[in-house]
């Protein structure tokens, strides 16, 4: 089959690779219909997560049609159109029973790597390095889905492939951030990052009853999408003092909930931007956390900060004093998508959650290198490059 692979830092190729096989009883094989780039792929692409091998198949956000099922699969059937969560979770361990699916004890066959870095190992993720299990990704004609009864959800009739696709990760991650940050009716919510995850965190906050939602970014086409398709207000951080603006629009309190949806390659201006770039390039910090810092400083006393962006290891100048003295709750997680996907698909079926606008560039798989280049450089208004294997 054909597949888009990581072949080196900032190099993507399309190669012929072996077809996947059923290896465990709970597997299914999916013929991929849609698979999308995600901002977190850029950390792999750029070599910031140094656990990729040349030839690894990329992609973790996808949907498709079931073409083969393992003998232990109970619920999935050949021919079903399904969307699959990006994290691989068994459904039976204690973490899965708590609906903390991305923390599954049985989804990562390489726990020694992440245990040595973080103390414990989270679950596995499709196409996201050997630290997260070495699972082949979805930028391919076919993909093997372990624990398919837990992670694959039937797409309701009437929901388009482009809409269902983003339930896999962008919507479920955004929804999780809004939910686990404790968003409730009447809250003011600020979201850093107007990519797919940030937009969907904002939309989820609105559906959870937030009174006002602000999304912060610098790219005009993404901010325009937020206003047009999400219905939230926007702040351009390249022109506006974000902290002053948020104080002004919240009566001096600051947002009740702050959601960071940027991750380890955050851009920022001035001294902070230069400082973080230099420290990251010198390997004195692994991640650039400017959006997290700003979220902590902006948040109201006793408020909640949720970190959705992917971080690898260590950051510098973390405002621990502000966090502690303002009594903030700071939380983060990879996506517990299985917890939210049934509800998300219902919202999609009712037209309350639309995502088609995120797929600004729908391309054949053979054009994956060009798609990643546009996505990385943010050229031609690219918000997400979606491939059709």
């Amino acid at each position, binding site marked *: *089959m054909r*597949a888009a*692979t990581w*072949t*080196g830092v900032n190099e993507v*190729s399309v*190669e*012929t*690779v*072996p*077809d*996947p*096989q059923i*290896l*465990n*009883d*709970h597997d299914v094989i999916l013929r991929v219909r849609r698979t999308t780039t995600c901002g977190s792929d850029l950390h792999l692409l750029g070599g910031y997560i*140094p*656990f*990729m*091998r*040349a*030839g*690894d*198949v990329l992609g973790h956000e996808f949907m498709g049609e079931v073409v083969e099922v393992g003998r*232990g699969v109970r619920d999935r059937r050949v021919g079903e159109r399904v969307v699959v969560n990006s994290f691989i979770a*068994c459904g*039976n*361990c*204690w973490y899965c*029973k708590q609906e903390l699916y991305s923390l599954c*004890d*049985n*989804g990562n*066959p*390489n*726990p*020694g*790597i*992440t*245990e*040595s*870095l973080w*103390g*414990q*190992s989270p679950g596995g993720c499709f196409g996201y390095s*050997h630290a997260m*299990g*070495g*699972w*082949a990704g979805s930028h*391919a004609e076919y993909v*093997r889905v*372990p*624990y398919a009864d837990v992670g694959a959800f039937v797409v309701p009739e009437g929901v388009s492939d482009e809409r269902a696709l983003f339930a896999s990760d962008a919507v479920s991650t955004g929804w999780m951030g809004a939910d686990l940050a404790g968003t409730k009716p009447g809250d003011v919510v600020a979201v850093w990052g107007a990519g797919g995850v940030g937009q969907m965190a904002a939309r989820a906050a609105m559906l959870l009853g937030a009174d006002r939602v602000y999304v912060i970014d610098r790219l005009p086409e993404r901010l325009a999408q937020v206003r047009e398709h999400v219905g939230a207000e926007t702040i351009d951080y390249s022109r506006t003092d974000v902290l002053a603006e948020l104080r002004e629009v919240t009566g001096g309190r600051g947002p009740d909930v702050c959601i960071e949806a940027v991750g380890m390659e955050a851009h920022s201006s001035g001294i902070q931007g230069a400082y973080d770039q230099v420290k990251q390039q010198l390997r004195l910090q692994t991640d650039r956390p400017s959006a997290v810092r700003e979220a902590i400083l902006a948040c109201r006393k006793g408020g909640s900060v949720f970190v959705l962006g992917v971080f690898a*290891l*260590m950051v510098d100048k973390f405002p621990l004093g502000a966090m502690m003295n303002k009594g903030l709750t700071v939380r983060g997680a990879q996506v517990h998508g299985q917890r939210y996907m049934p509800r998300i698909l219902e919202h999609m079926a009712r037209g309350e959650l639309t995502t088609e606008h995120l797929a600004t560039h729908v391309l054949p798989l053979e054009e994956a290198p060009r798609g990643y280049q546009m996505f990385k450089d943010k050229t031609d208004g690219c918000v997400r490059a979606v491939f059709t294997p």
Partner: protein
Amino acid sequence: MAVPRLLDSLRGAATEAGGALLGRLQHVRLPGLGQSSVPEDPETAARRWRAVTVLCSPEQVGTGADLPAPLAALGDRVELRITPAPGDRGTELAARYRDRPSDDDLRALRAALRETKQLIEVGEVLRVDPAPHGVRKPTPQGAALEGATARAGGEGVL
């Protein structure tokens, strides 16, 4: 012929180094990195109980011949401690060698505990290989990662 043999030899060394590095990573003690607070004497460290918590009753773990195959394969060389976990967390399954184990022994024990947990909770041990992939460039970094990955099921803080 000498150059390809030299390159093969270098890749082999990189693979071995990657595996060895992973084995040492958890013992690093730098701010924010490493999983041990003070160095213990090797005898104490090697003889620590290694434990997983399994979401099942203590009876489901079994004893003697009823133990899941990965643990049973270690036979009388290991002693087991099976106790209910607090709250609703299942059963704490701990094991340690009766004699002084080698690094290979410890890797085998970690893998056996993880596989036992999976067999009880899921009914099978998850396999990732053979995973589809493209051309593997024969680089030292790739070889080192291959070495680390090969040992990753038996390394870690367990």
